[in-house]
């Protein structure tokens, strides 16, 4: 990333690694584990690149952080927080930490 991410001092997340897309802050990335959506909605998301195993990077957002743009599979897709919260990330121990 060419751009330093804005991290607040005293980040309390060291103990709780991001578990869904909505927990990723700008510049952070994670690996998608599963989509907790209805079959139809999950299908749509997968067509856009949100397949389990895909690496997702959080990018810019509307003011207030919702909706946020995510980089996945070579494109940028904006999701509302409520949807991003349904996309669960893989535990960092099975993958490198962000």
């Amino acid at each position, binding site marked *: 990333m060419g751009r330093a991410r804005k991290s607040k001092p005293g980040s309390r997340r060291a103990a709780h690694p991001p578990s869904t897309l909505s927990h990723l802050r700008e510049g952070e990335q994670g690996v998608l584990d599963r989509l907790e959506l209805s079959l139809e909605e999950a299908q749509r998301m997968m*067509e*856009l690149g949100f397949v389990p195993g895909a690496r997702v990077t959080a990018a810019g957002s509307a003011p207030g952080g919702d*909706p946020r743009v995510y980089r996945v599979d070579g494109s940028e897709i904006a*999701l509302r927080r409520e949807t991003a919260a349904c996309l669960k990330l893989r535990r960092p121990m099975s993958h490198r930490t962000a």
Partner: protein
Amino acid sequence: MSDCHGCSPSPTLVTPSPVTLPQKARRLVAIVGPPNCGKSTLFNQLTGLRQKVANFPGVTVEQRTGTVRFDDGRKVLLVDLPGTYSLSTRSEDEQVTHDVLVGRCEDVRRPDAVLLILDSTNLERQLLLAAPVLAQGLPTLVVLNMADDLRRRYGSVDLKSLSRQLGAPVALVSAARGEGLDAVREFLAGEASPPVRTLVELPIITDVPKCRMWARQVGSGANYRAPAPPLWTRRLDAAFLHPMWGPLIFLSVVLAVFQSVFVAAVPLTNGVQALIDRAGGAVAGWLPEGVLRSLLIEGVWGGVGSVIVFLPQILVLFLFIGVLEDSGYLARAALIADRTMAKVGLQGKSFIPLISAYACAVPAIMATRTIENKRDRMATILIAPFMTCSARLPVYALLIAAFIPERPLVGPLLGTRAATLLGLYMLGFLAAVVTARLLKSSILKSHRTPFVMEMPPYRWPTLRSLGLRLYDRSKVFLRRAGTVILGVAIVLWILAHVPLQDGKVPPIEDSVAGTIGRTVEPLIRPLGFNWKIGIGLVSSLAAREVIVGTLGTIYGMEGKAENSSLQAAIQKDLTTGGAIALMVFFAFAMQCMSTLAVVRRETASWKWPALQFAYMTTVAYIGAFLAYHIFS
């Protein structure tokens, strides 16, 4: 064979051995591709102005067809199918694309061949659509678009091996720059193209992860090197999506658009006005005094001419909307606006149809097809006519110019006139938002569907695409001026000349038109309108801008338009409060037959358009009443 560019040593078109097929009467080729892949740009490049828009029967999906002509006189018919990510049949868009390709669409026969457009800068994901399309077995040319972008960002792909793996010819083009299109034309001209023969087993199409695996294999088999991230898009987004600068830029863009509608378009408007006046004067000089001259000058020239004057302002507005949309900024604007939309229970996806409702509610209501949730779609249809469509602009522009003195508000950035116009636009938007809130919390309550929107990389808008937009808009506007407005102007002129009194034309108050106006006068007097405005309101039930034409005709008959402009004439009939009331009335009222007709068709019942008409007219009446009493 093509103006090959130096990026790849392989030719832009790789064809497996040709097979000869019997020729059909007129070759029909379908264009298929995911959204944002440059499908429309390619379609425009190939067909130019030889295109028309129709509707698939039974559904709201727009069908664009165009003709490609070859030097030897042969023609190929192109049909641009809606952009889809897959051929599953969840939305109407996908259903139509699917039905056309399998030959199940009543209106369009099964195409002879397919142009599958994919964005070469994101090939592996876009190949997801290739699997189901190629599985149809139609002769297919896989067109990899955005070649210039791919090259600039150091991406590459081996076309030969991609073609081998897909079993279909592949062309690398840049539709925006017109690069590599010879290969596409060659494919279109080919009387017989080989049907697809797949060497690789196509994956189970409904299983997306498996399909994605297949796409990755094809990509790596073709030595696909994904391009570097779009640097400029990242840089621009850092500003446009900045927590503070983002909304400020959004606001300045909106203000700049409105200010330029008044400031930048003024010389053009004056030019058109002068042209119309001079032509009218010349015709009047040629014709002998009599009925024909009166009809032509007062009826037609006064009516139609006073509407046509507003063409430059409409075009300036559409130039801006076109630049915003083609550059990719509109998607960011939708992102910034999503929170507001969510608050009223709508989704960001409703934002795009609502933006296009600024042009005209009719295509906007058709564009609601992208909203999968039926109730959300219904709510969007019902609020779309509140958005300030371009037919309102002539009414606003006339009244603002006549009643609002121009004074700078924020230095040279924003004047009182642009601010008034902006206020009217916001008023319409507010009415839409409040109505949506009401609908979504009562009769159209529904679960929220996920909001998903792709952010395309920023691109320079092409002159060609902007030109086509302006051409289309002018065509629609002038056609309406030549049909609806001309018709109403003639009918009105006749109604204003009968019944004859002792063989003479009656004073306009006693004519049929005058009687109609005076009949509705008691109803509209509380809003500050007299009987002349009443005639305008009744006639503008057909279309909003008709009121300008009607007033042009009426004042033309009173002989006032001879010396003074329509603006000066209307100042005698309205107070400033009445003028503001009239603008508020038009901000809210559903004065448009075409919109009612399209709502009737979309909702398949008269209930919704009737409800919509009654509701909007009531809101308009109350709004105008309040405005009149506040401002006078």
